[in-house]
């Protein structure tokens, strides 16, 4: 563990006394990295970040969008360590960790968060995050970022079926297939539909498949209805599935992001074999966003981390993890993504990219309706 320079300790004490500093590149500029100084440069930021010596992240599993590779690359390039908290946490827990450690700027306080798109506005309203615009700000689509720089999309993927081929003979091809008797006791969500972004999207996606032209409300209700049928048929396994539960056969068919499924297939190396199937209809795109904590103990390290994530190198790491980096379109046009990496990314043709408003609406209906319509509690224990 890196020893702290005296300067870093002083910076912490000063920072704690002086309250959090908010920095933004002046709106409208092409986002030179902002620092606490008047006109910062990248070198100043690197120096300040290395002085702090560590960036505390939270809820970043190493096999999620190749975060393992991202961390390795970051630590190799800069003299800053990554301190990863609660790698299994969800978006809500990330924000809770920020507020729980407001007055405790230590190793338990996150500097940066990676939260579902729906969580950004609430975090901003609660004053938990501070704005920052990375150097490549302009290449992030408007719909994927907060105009004032508080949160900004980092990657997206589509929901897919992660299938354990040892337990399942024929993989399902679409949502309707999941209701077949062959899949009795096999289908699970990758989270609690009352709190998890991915689970909520899964329910909505099932509804989109049933009613492609319906309103958000109709689709959400159709999705809830689908899961009620799934549960009544005995096909639904009410536990919070993840790569591990698929691997050991607890949840042979998991509805999760395609990138997690593919990463797991590689990690398990055929024991068992994993099939990643993007459904034929109801293709749902899910996006996550980055934000810097308003109480970040290491604000400069946090900013450097964001710069790295949005640099060509960082965005490519995401792509290598089977995720679409947010700058995909411009990077592809500039030829910055190798063909073999592009080949591994799923097609997003026909995929639904929900707007923030649609997302919040769907979330409202699913969370409210799940206990009534489906009435099953999803066991979210890490080992179950």
């Amino acid at each position, binding site marked *: *563990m890196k*020893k702290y320079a005296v300067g870093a300790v002083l910076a912490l004490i000063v920072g704690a006394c002086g309250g959090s500093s908010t920095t933004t590149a002046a709106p409208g500029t092409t986002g030179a990295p902002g620092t606490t100084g008047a006109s910062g440069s990248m070198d100043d930021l690197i120096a300040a970040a290395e002085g702090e010596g560590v960036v505390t992240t939270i809820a970043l599993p190493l096999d999620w969008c190749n975060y393992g590779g991202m961390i390795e690359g970051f630590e190799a390039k800069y003299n800053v360590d990554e301190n990863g908290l609660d790698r299994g946490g969800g978006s809500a827990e990330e924000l809770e960790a920020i507020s729980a450690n407001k*007055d405790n700027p230590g190793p338990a306080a996150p500097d940066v968060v990676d939260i579902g798109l729906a969580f950004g506005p609430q975090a901003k309203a609660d004053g938990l995050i501070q704005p920052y615009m990375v150097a490549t700000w302009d290449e992030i689509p408007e719909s994927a970022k907060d105009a004032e720089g508080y949160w900004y999309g980092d990657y997206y993927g589509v929901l897919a079926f992660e299938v354990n081929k040892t337990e399942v003979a024929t993989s399902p091809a679409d949502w309707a297939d999941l209701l077949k008797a062959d899949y009795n006791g096999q289908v699970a969500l990758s989270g609690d539909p009352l709190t998890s972004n991915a689970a909520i999207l899964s329910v909505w996606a099932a509804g989109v498949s049933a009613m492609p032209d319906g309103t958000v409300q109709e689709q959400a209700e159709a999705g809830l209805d689908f899961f009620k049928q799934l549960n009544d048929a005995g096909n639904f396994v009410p536990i919070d599935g993840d790569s591990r539960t698929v691997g050991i056969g607890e949840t042979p068919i998991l509805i999760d992001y395609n990138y997690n499924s593919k990463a797991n297939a590689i990690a398990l190396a055929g024991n068992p074999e994993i099939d990643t199937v993007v459904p034929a209809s109801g293709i749902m795109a899910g996006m996550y966003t980055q934000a810097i904590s308003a109480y970040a103990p290491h604000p400069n390290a946090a900013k450097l981390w964001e710069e790295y994530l949005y640099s060509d190198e960082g965005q490519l790491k995401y792509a290598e993890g089977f995720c679409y980096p947010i700058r995909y379109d411009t990077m592809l046009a500039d030829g910055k993504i190798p063909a073999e990496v592009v080949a591994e990314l799923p097609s997003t043709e026909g995929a639904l990219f929900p707007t923030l408003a649609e997302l919040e609406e769907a979330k409202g209906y699913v969370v409210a309706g799940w206990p009534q319509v489906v009435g099953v509690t999803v066991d979210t224990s890490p080992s179950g």
Partner: protein
Amino acid sequence: MVAVTISTAPIQAAAEAPAPVELQKKNRLGAWIVFGLVAIYFLLPLAATFWWSLRALKDQYTLEAYRRLFADSNFLPAFTQSLVNAAVAILLSLLIIMPTAYWVTLRMPRLRPVIEFITLLPFVIPGVVLVFGLIRLYSRPPLVLTHTYDSSRILLVCAYAALSFPYMYRAVDNGLRAMDVRSLTEAAQSLGASWPTILRRVIFPNLRVALLSGALLTFAIVIGELTIALFLAQKTFGPYMAELTRSKVYEPSAMAIVAFAITWAAMGMIALITRPRKEK
């Protein structure tokens, strides 16, 4: 009460009481049944875990899970951190408990109940409550220990030392009772020894076995401790194991077997060194 019930036992029962040998046999069968059933309960999870740990590769039994465990880049740092934490906590505990127990035995016997009560506090304060209090107490000036990783680590080690007090104190206290502290001290003093010398050259060597068993118990507690390390954001073995269990398929079973083996080694050593001596 005992005397009364014996004398009222009917004398005819003597004739009906089963012969001692048959009684022993019935006893032994019952004992074997109880032992057998309980043994199954205890050995089954170990056997199941071990069996799982051999199945990392498809259709074969290998030690691959163990290899992956030891090759994991996070395994050794976490284990080493815990080892160092344990060593420092043991040393700290030793340095505090030994003089204290000695002092109380020799000079302030009236304080003994107070000291014993305090050493029992770790049983009264659950780990999760202790870390709650530690964080609240040490996250604000004047005593700020939770703002950096290293200072939090100091807090962790001190907490571990405090948690080891019941075991260390009991061990040292037993050891002191077994030796005639007063005479030894007076003899040493009459030879002109100072307190530190007495502690170091006279008391400590005689307490070696007791201290070793206290140390081993502390080691077993510290090495896999989860609760306090988790909330102080420390990268020790406990949180590492928890993360492993959450994310990997085969490695956690290898880890559980390794953890069991380590605990067994520590306890086995205690049993070995505290074997009753031949001399009476």
